[in-house]
């Protein structure tokens, strides 16, 4: 019986990107995590910025002035893009994790067809949906900037 501990070989965060077969769903998995962290960061900053209102109208106006530049408009659009993807992919995950769109167990006969293949149309569908939401939001942003 081996008692010594071996050399650590856990992939860490790199394992979110590599270590498997690099299928579409791995990228959706990783992007879902990254957009989730991005949205969380935005919410924290949002609370910090809007909390200036507690210190009076002048502090509120100064706070709003600091975040109204062009870079922040781009940042807001990125937040919107993250929302569009995260929400659309979240719907897919709710469906898949409740056992929908992944098919029933089958006898594995080579070449194997897995649940990943079964739900691929749904994955592509949510990408199209996220793209449509992003396009509509982008149009709105551009219209807002032009005024």
């Amino acid at each position, binding site marked *: 019986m081996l008692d010594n501990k071996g050399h650590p070989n856990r992939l860490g965060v790199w394992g979110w990107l590599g*270590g498997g077969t690099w299928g579409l769903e791995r990228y959706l998995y990783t992007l879902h995590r990254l957009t989730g962290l991005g949205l969380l960061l935005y919410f924290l900053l949002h609370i910090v910025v809007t909390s200036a209102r507690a210190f009076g109208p002048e502090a509120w106006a100064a706070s709003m002035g600091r975040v109204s530049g062009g870079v922040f408009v781009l940042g807001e659009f990125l937040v919107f893009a993250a929302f569009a993807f995260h929400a659309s992919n979240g719907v897919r995950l709710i469906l898949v994790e409740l056992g929908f769109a992944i098919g029933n167990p089958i006898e594995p006969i080579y070449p*194997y067809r897995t649940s990943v293949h079964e739900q691929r149309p749904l994955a592509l569908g949510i990408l199209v949906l996220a793209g449509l939401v992003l396009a509509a939001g982008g149009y709105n942003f551009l219209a807002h900037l032009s005024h």
Partner: protein
Amino acid sequence: MTAPVNVTFRIRRYDPASQQPPAWEDVTIPYTHGMTVLDGLRVIKETRSATLAWRSSCRMGVCGSCGMFINGHPRLACNTQITELGTSLVTVAPLPNFDIIRDLVPDLRPMFDAHAALMPHLIRDDVQEMYEPTGEYFQTPHELEQFLQFSYCIKCGCCMAACPTMATDPAYSGPMPLAQSHRYNVDSRDGGFGTRKQVLATEKGPWKCHYAGECSQACPKGVDPARAIQLMKRQLVFDYLRLYKQPCPSKVVPKPTEMKRRADVPEAPAPTL
């Protein structure tokens, strides 16, 4: 791909006695027709580096011993043809997400511990019947289909190496143990869902899986652990909402007593032991 004349194996070597971190070693050997990665490793061990260590046994994709990280993918070395890789450079490393014992030998004990913790066996009240059966547990072909796919697992660890959640979370049980737990949860002969649920409802359970799907893509036997885990989540959610009713474990069907042997089927030979 046309067969190469020579193949270079880039092997991740690690000797625990040397106190040195793992390092790559290149070895070039002549290619022979039909050579698998496992065949290549055997040639290297016989002719170039006698200290090279790995696990293997059956050489036919059945035992699950030779899971390795080959050209960036978790695969069985015995099931992987050199020509299938499309290159004459074969990188071979131990399966990631497991500690390395030596060279290409991963420490699979955490996987088997997690497997055992999820009780991958029939749990029933009639213990006496299980140990001294008087008949067979009745099961329809449809009931068999609910778990047959998941029962093909050979515990090679390829799914655990491919899983991105396993890459950052040691507390997660992983695809293999969870899929095998589901295999018994949906077995009509089993009545242990309520017992396993106590473990599945913890951080060891399926809730950290967010369907990267890599385990199912990497599985060399088509077991589809991702499907098992999602179906398990549905079962647990429905159970939480009191919408799932655990069926009674199947009944014992007595052994037939009035069967007659067909004339063209000979008697079994006498036992030799």
